[in-house]
Every structure is written in C-alpha cells, then in structure tokens.
C-alpha cells in the first residue's frame, strides 16, 4: 500500500493542473483583495475594504469550489485509467489501488487547501483593514466546518471517475447528486417537515450558508460530510472492484 501511495504521490506532484488550479485561485483571491484595497484607498467612505468582507467573499465562493473539486480526483483517476492494467497485472488488488489513490488525492487536497487558506489570510492581513477582532477566527471556523463536505465532494468525484469514462458525464452526475436534491428539497420544505430536515442537513446547504454566522452546531456539517464520504467511498470501492481493463 505504501509503495502504491508513493508512486501515486510521484505522479500527483508532477501534474501541472494541480499547480494551475492553485495559481488560478490565488489570482482570483489576490484580484478581490487588491480591488477592495484600491477602493478603500480611493474612497474614504468605502465600508468593505476589511478582512471580514474579504473572507466572507471567499466563503461565498465555496459552492463553486465544490463543483471545481474534480481537478483533484481526475489527476489520478482520469483519462489515463488504462494504465491501471499494469498495476493490476502486478498483483495489486482493485481495493488497494482505489484506496491508495484516494488517500493521496485527499492528502494533496489538504495541502492545497492549507496553502490557499494561508494565501487568503496573508492577502487579507497585508492589504485590508482589521475591522472585526474575530474575523480570522470566524473564517477559520467556517473553513474547518466545510472541510468534511469538501472531502465528501472529492470522494464522490473520485468514485464517479473510477467507473465513468467521460469528464462531462462525471461532472453532470456530481451536480445531479448534490445540487438537484438541494433545490428539490428547497421547493418541498414548506410542505413537508422531513423535506425541511433533509434540506437543512444536505452538504450543499452548508456550503451556501457558510458566509453567514452558522445557525447549526459544528458537528452537523461533519456528520453530513462523513455520511456522504462513507456512502460514496463504499459505492466507488464496490464498483471499482468489478472494473476490467
């Protein structure tokens, strides 16, 4: 297993998409911070040139980030799946292959998330005004609460990528799995109590409400994320163990 992970890590760190994605997010955040900074410098009455507003804007983008998560699983479970025949022929079980790749992808994502969190904090602290004492703490708490949802997203994308061939199919299935129920439950919640409960406990709900002060206990998004992670990890593992190359 360790050898498998080592080789996947060798592949992962040599993938340009990983760095391009990081660069893109950094540029977007830097653009937002610089615009706020410029307005704050040029207009004395401008109220939004502060860290808190900047962080809430970053958090408001999380549903988009959630959709764009496919970058990570596709690095190791994308179009070059045919290569897995070499790995299977050497006696590695499908379960080991699946698990090793997933662990490396999650580790890569965590490093990516930590680095970009650091960049955002650096941008906020160096360019913008600290108007609220707890802005950074609230921002950190929100990011931690959304982490399991992001892990669920990666696990789901990964499971889909393991059994589907086309990227468009994978993304469409992902959007249907997460966003369609969210909007359907939203429409039903005024009529059914169970729909209201499900709506307020589905992962996308936590993403859309991240920039507000959370009205739910911290364990809720963790539980919701963990359930989705386990379900899609198990499903992906089961389907991948039947894959032929």
């Amino acid at each position: 297993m360790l050898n498998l992970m080592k080789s996947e890590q060798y592949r992962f760190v040599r993938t340009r998409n990983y760095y391009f994605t990081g660069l893109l997010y950094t540029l977007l955040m830097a653009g937002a911070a610089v615009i706020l900074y410029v307005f704050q410098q040029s207009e004395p009455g401008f109220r939004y040139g502060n860290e808190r507003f900047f962080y809430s804007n970053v958090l408001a983008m999380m549903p988009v980030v959630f959709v764009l998560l496919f970058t990570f699983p596709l690095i190791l479970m994308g179009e070059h799946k045919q290569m897995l025949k070499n790995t299977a022929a050497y006696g590695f079980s499908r379960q080991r292959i699946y698990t090793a790749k997933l662990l490396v992808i999650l580790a890569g994502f965590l490093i990516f998330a930590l680095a970009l969190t650091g960049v955002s904090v650096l941008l906020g602290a160096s360019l913008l005004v600290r108007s609220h004492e707890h802005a950074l703490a609230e921002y950190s708490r929100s990011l931690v609460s959304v982490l399991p949802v992001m892990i669920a997203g990666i696990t789901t994308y990964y499971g889909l990528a393991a059994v589907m061939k086309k990227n468009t199919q994978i993304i469409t299935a992902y959007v249907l799995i997460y966003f369609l129920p969210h909007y359907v439950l939203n429409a039903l919640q005024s009529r059914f109590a169970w729909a209201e409960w499900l709506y307020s406990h589905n992962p996308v709900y936590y993403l859309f409400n991240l920039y507000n002060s959370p009205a739910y206990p911290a364990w809720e998004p963790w539980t919701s994320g963990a359930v989705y992670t386990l379900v899609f990890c198990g499903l992906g593992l089961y389907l991948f163990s039947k894959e032929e190359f």
Partner: protein
Amino acid sequence: MMHCILEIEALGKTYKDVHALQDIQLSIAAGDIAAVIGKNGAGKTTLFKCITEQVFPTSGTLTLYGKKDAAGIRQQRRTIGAMIEEPAFFPDFTARQNLEYFRQQRGIAGKEAVDQALRDVKLLDTGRKKFKDFSLGMKQRLGLALALMSHPALLILDEPTNGLDPEGKAEIRELLKNLNAVKKVTILISSHVLSELQSVATRYIFMDRGRIVEQLTAEELLDKTRRAVELTVDDSGKAATVLEQQFPDIPFRILPGNRIRLSGGTDRTEQLNRALYSGGVGVRSIAVTGEDLEEYYLGLLGGERHA
C-alpha cells in the same frame, strides 16, 4: 522434468453473450517459451488478461506457482512481467519518469533498475522525449522494459514485436531467447507473425474461437511440419535396405501401406528414384510433403472448420 508454474482448468470468460474463452485447459512448465497462436478474436489476449487479472474469468480455476487462492495468486503475480495489448503509460511523462513511477509502485530497490530496463530495450537515450511523442516501436519497447524491470520469472507478451522494424524484431527475439536461456525466464507469447514464434517457441498452443484446439511441443510440431519425401513402394522392407545403404544421412520412417517418409532429401528425389529402381524396388509414387507453421495453422483451422 520441469515443474508446472501455471495451470489453468476449465477457464471461461464471457462478455455479455460472447464466449471469449471456453473450457481452457493449459499448463505451462518452468522454462517453456509457449507461443499462443490464433487469429484476431481467437481469445489470446483475453486469456492473457485473465492470467494477469486485468479481466475476471467467469468460470474455471487458475493455479500460479502452486497457489490457488485469490490472495496467493495475487502475491505470485509479482513474479510476472506482462505486456498485453498496446502499452499504456502516462503520455506527458518521459520513458524514465514512467518507469520510475512503476519502480516505486513495485517497490523495486535502486533507481538503476530503470536504467537497466531502458538499456535492455535500447531506450536509454530518449532523454526528455515524452511518451506521447514516441513511435509505435518505441512504445512497444517501453512496454517490454516495464515487463522486464521487476526481473520476472514469467513473461507474458501479447504481440511484443508489433510496430518494430525487422532489426528491432530480431533484437527482441534474441533478448527473449537470452532471458530464457540465461535467466530461465518462462515466456508466454503471442504474435501474428508466426515465423517469429517458430524461431523462439518451445511449445505451441493453437486457439480458435475461444478454445484451445491443439497443443504441441516444438519437436512435435517440427515432426508434423518437417519438409519430407514420401514414397510409396511395392516392398517397404527392401526399400529400407536400399535407403540405409545408399542414403545413410537421411532419416526415415516406415509407414503403413508400404509408405516411407524421409525427413529430408527433398532435393534428391531423382537420385532416390534411381537408387530404388536399381535396387529392385518398384516405386509407385514419390512426393515432397511438409508445411511451415503458418500452413500448419491454417490447415488446423481449416480442419476445425470442416469438423
């Protein structure tokens, strides 16, 4: 007697309604170079894929180095080097990077294993050229390098000389012969170019429509396909005496019906005829017979077709 390293019993593989493999019985002994021969769709590649678990058989059992259970077989697969269908590598990696990825995955100690594998297939000087820019022949060589990198005891090669120029094909043949002779590597190989197999194989496995239709050792095949002169005479005993005295260099066998089969002498039929006539033997017919591997294979399939 060599011990059996791979044994397959009643193996079958079905894709939806298509029987890709049916009731395959096969055993490969250590040191064999077993050539699997069959036209497209005969089941050669599927058989190799079943052995390496790239696909799952729908029936039958497989024993590899005495192991029958899934975990044991998987462990023994570490001794297999395989190249099945077209080689698959990361297109944006160089040859060295691709092999380094697999070296780490397989836990092969020492980066020099990569250089050695590249040297073996003459790809050491490809530098920064990416796999996607390789010619078909170079891709085949890299596939072979991967198969060799882990120092396998059993090599499974599906059309390994595809896309290689004649010089490259000859090099691969020599490499395989050398691996078999020096390192005692057992080889299971398929190719469309039957003459290539004839120069390396010690065993032949003929497949058609998912079944093994015949298995022969090289000696048996040679015996069946050897160019020969077949005589029909009035007295085979008398003819044998003449042949022993006048053509001691040509081995022969007496067959039923006063027929004699000579293993050779195809260019001396006139001399044979004269000598027998002089020795008082009546020659009713004299004919050159025999066929090459391709003719034999086609004949075999023809026979199957009419069966």
